């Protein structure tokens, strides 16, 4: 029974963890005009799509994206599209990335995040019929890239047992 509960918790842990980070990312910090948080959701999607792809299902990504949009007051569905897109991108490069050293993974993460954030920008511009240029997106992207190694370490530490289990299964 304990084992079943533990397995279930391990399965839903990424979703709960990312939901909590999405909520944290919505907190206003009174030091800057715009909250300077990295894009936790995309970092999480990248991490789990790479190391444990079966944990975040496509439907989980849909709900996570919609939750992100609701928390941030964005058109609901845009983040779901970019989460699904990122998941698909990581999935297509997974076999290659798993064999590579961490700096390659980090570089791939940075490239993929940049690409999906550009798509995000274009979708938002299309939906809101406005073009807006300021440093917010660049700051968010840089923060996400810079903080990915820390995020990676934390997720590894929190999810290590499960990760070991998955890699053993897939190995």
């Amino acid at each position, binding site marked *: 029974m304990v084992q079943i509960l533990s397995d279930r918790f391990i399965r839903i842990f990424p979703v709960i963890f990312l939901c909590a980070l999405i*909520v944290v990312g919505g907190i206003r910090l009174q030091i800057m005009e715009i909250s300077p948080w990295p894009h936790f959701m995309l970092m999480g999607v990248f991490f789990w799509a790479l190391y444990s792809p079966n944990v975040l299902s*496509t439907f989980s990504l*849909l709900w996570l994206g919609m939750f992100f949009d609701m928390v941030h007051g964005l058109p609901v569905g845009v983040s779901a599209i970019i989460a699904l897109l990122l998941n698909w991108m990581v999935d297509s490069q997974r076999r290659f990335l798993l064999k590579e050293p961490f700096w390659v993974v980090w570089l791939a993460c940075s490239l993929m995040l940049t690409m999906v954030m550009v798509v995000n920008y274009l979708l938002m511009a299309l939906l809101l019929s406005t073009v807006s240029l300021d440093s917010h997106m660049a700051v968010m992207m840089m923060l996400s890239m810079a903080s990915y190694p820390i995020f990676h370490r934390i997720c590894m530490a929190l999810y290590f047992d499960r990760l070991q289990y998955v890699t053993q299964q897939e190995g």
Partner: protein
Amino acid sequence: MAKRNNVSVVHAITPILTMVRKSTVLVLMFLSLIIAFISQSDHPFAVGPRTFVTDIIVVMYDIALSPMDNITSAAQAISDWTGVYEDNKMLRENAKATENISYRLWLAEQENRRLRQALEFTDMVPFSVRTVRMVGGSDLFRRHGYINLGTRGGIEKGQVVIDGNGLIGRVQEVGQLSAKVVMISDINSKVPVLVVSQDTGERYKAIIAGNNTKFLSLQHFPVEHSIGIGDMILTSGDGEFFPPDILVGEVARIGREQISVEPAAHLNVTDIIHVIDKMVVIPPATDELVEQ
């Protein structure tokens, strides 16, 4: 034999499963795009779930941030206690300095009342405000925030939001426990204003438009003007969305065709703000009032 059959079934099913999985992703992406378009509308079908989730999140933020409030107020109390002697000395000096000013203000108020009476002037001023907390942040495309009061707290769509320094924005969407405030710096925000020239004292009607940056853009001002850096911008009250005479900001930069305005309110940085609850009509002054 049975094993061979199983293997061939797995081989046959795998490509189909992969195709289904890939098509699911595409279908969900398409579905998300449709939802995104629908969510942009003001239809109750879109607004209902959105405000429901916002209500939950704002309550969560409110609970999560309350210990921080206590810590901040405790720190403030300690700081106040340590500086009480200095504060007292400074306050005594200030009190002496303001004695003369308050007498002049009283005279000006009397004069103002008499002039109002002479002109039979009717005006509207903010009567009461509600102090609320702003949570949630802005993003690249939107400048907004959420407040921790909704319809249950008496908040209505269209109410004006200010902080201690000036205009912040307007309530755009109201849930039961929260409401969405669109700031004046939002790209879709337009506020009718009056520019008060410091040099000539002239007043020009114009529009303040947000552009998702920390400066606002002054539009539709007269071609010939004497607007200078530092001129005050107040709401004009035109259009009946914003009450008159609320400080919006001051002129910060003057270009060839563009005038930039620095907002008086600390947009996005302030967390305790006020929602103007009620406006009251000041009737023309009477002799009795003046005497009072």
